[in-house]
């Protein structure tokens, strides 16, 4: 152990102690590792983008050129229905299904923010009958195979005429996002001191007013975390939408993209373009709200 890396592995401490300099060798090793991690995380996604702006013939050429010799946006034009091509029937589903995805994800997010946070608040502040049992049940549903609910939804929705409707998907998605939101919000509200509610109550608010006027306004980060996470889950969800909404024009984006992947006559470059479009909103959302999301999710899981 001659070359002990005299570094600060406890960087959260900030300026509380003097950081000893790292040796040159260790610095090189560290940056090499950082570069490797960055490459591992990002390169596959970047390659998806590169293939989406390439011609299929260039992808098939050997040796493969990692910098595309020709750049084209034709794949995006095809996917968005701006040019005619042989599989335009498939591609024509992209935009409407994107709109469906957006509608479903937005509505579920709003429901989660209203219902889920309220329930989270109740769990964080009140004692009520069956609280620990229902909390237990909540934890269990977080570990639940959502797929086990799908046959049930299939039959219930068939009876209710909710198959192939966005309403059906919204209900189904709520059933597996609400437990997460309740959990995240419960953890968040527990970090807000009780005294805040208490002083609002003393000032003449009732519980509901204390919640809406005093607690919610200081819960921004928790709400952002819960909302962004819910939106991401719904936007990305695949199997439930695949099974419940089979009729043309009623499904969301992931099954449509997966369907394109199943067609042998569609070039990979075109599929890559649709995949990139499907990925972009969730990635941007997560990157924008990165800070809150990480805090919310780790607090929710780490603190249990």
């Amino acid at each position: 152990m001659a070359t002990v890396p005299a570094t600060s592995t406890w960087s959260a401490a900030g300026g509380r102690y003097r950081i000893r300099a790292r040796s040159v060798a260790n610095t090189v090793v560290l940056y090499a590792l950082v570069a490797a991690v960055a490459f591992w995380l990002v390169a596959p996604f970047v390659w998806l983008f590169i293939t989406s702006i390439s011609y299929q013939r260039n992808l098939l050429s050997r040796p493969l050129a990692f910098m595309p010799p020709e750049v084209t946006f034709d794949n995006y034009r095809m996917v968005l229905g701006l040019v005619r091509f042989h599989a335009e029937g498939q591609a024509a589903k992209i935009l409407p299904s994107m709109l469906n995805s957006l509608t479903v994800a937005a509505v579920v997010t709003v429901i989660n923010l209203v219902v889920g946070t309220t329930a989270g608040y109740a769990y964080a502040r009140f004692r009520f009958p069956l609280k620990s049992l229902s909390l237990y049940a909540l934890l269990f549903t977080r570990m639940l195979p959502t797929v086990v609910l799908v046959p049930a939804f299939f039959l219930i929705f068939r009876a209710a005429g909710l198959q192939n409707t966005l309403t059906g998907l919204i209900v189904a998605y709520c059933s597996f996002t609400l437990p997460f939101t309740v959990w995240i919000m419960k953890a968040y509200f527990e970090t807000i001191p009780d005294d805040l509610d208490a002083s609002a109550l003393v000032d003449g608010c009732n519980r509901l007013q204390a919640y809406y006027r005093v607690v919610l306004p200081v819960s921004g980060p928790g709400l952002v975390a819960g909302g962004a996470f819910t939106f991401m889950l719904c936007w990305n969800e695949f199997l439930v939408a695949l099974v419940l909404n089979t009729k043309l024009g009623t499904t969301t984006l992931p099954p449509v993209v997966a369907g394109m992947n199943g067609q042998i006559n569609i070039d990979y470059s075109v599929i890559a373009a649709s995949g990139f479009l499907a990925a972009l909103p969730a990635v941007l959302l997560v990157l924008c709200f990165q800070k809150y999301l990480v805090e919310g999710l780790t607090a929710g899981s780490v603190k249990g």
Partner: protein
Amino acid sequence: MIPALTIVSAVVAFPLVYSLWMSLADVNLLKTTGPAIELFGLRIPLFRFVGEANYARIFADPLYWGSVGRSLYFVAAFVIEATLVGLGMALVLQERFAGRTLMRSLLLIPWSLSRVVVGLLWIGLLDFEFGALNAALHRAGLIDTYIAFFKEGFTALNVLVSVYMWNQAPFATLLFLAGMQSIPVELHLAAEVDGAGYWQRLRYVTLPALRPILFLVLVLATVNGFLMLDLIYILTMGGPGYDTTTISWLGFQTAFNFFKFGPGAAILYTLTAFCLVLTFVYRFLMFRREAAA
């Protein structure tokens, strides 16, 4: 507050109970008459109760036990890979370096992608004809011919493990990083004063402090591993043969490709029972932590 709690339990609890019932019934999708319950004006069919017949049927099927075996292998490999890679990335990312905030953002990219996109993107890397990984290995002179990653069953299963790991390990990293940040700096300082090097501090300070998080990561990875379905749909469809048919895929297929809802629900419920056990384990660990804190 009460309505909120009611909604939460209604949308989760009812389907859960109903699918348990389905696993004990002879579900015939074409038959709409027969016993049913009325719920909010909806007529929900109850079908014919057959008791444990569905379970007896699936337990007698060698394919079920083969799928259990593949699931166990998948989960074991996935848990090990995701934990090690997650921990490894966390150890790198907790160091001080320029661009640390940026790196933590990049961490979220694989995790925020839809599994459909994750699957597509790895097809782009692994494909037999245009896969970039094949091209890179070929160019580096490591392989003479492109590898068909999904042709041989065991290889395909391992590829699924790694692709899922790419998607999920970043979340483990987030949890590990959160855990590392809660280690009191004095512990590290004291260890360093005592002459401990990097590896000794890792062994005697960091890892012991991360133990609760490690358990959490293990439990979550186990559950997620057992439930993984969407990547199988995109990448292998359970094939070649049944070589990547795991228990969750078998249940999904039985229910939705063959429309045998009874046995399908039964298969999925064996998974659910297992997750219930894991929830107990998880809860137990959490209670113990709270008691210790």
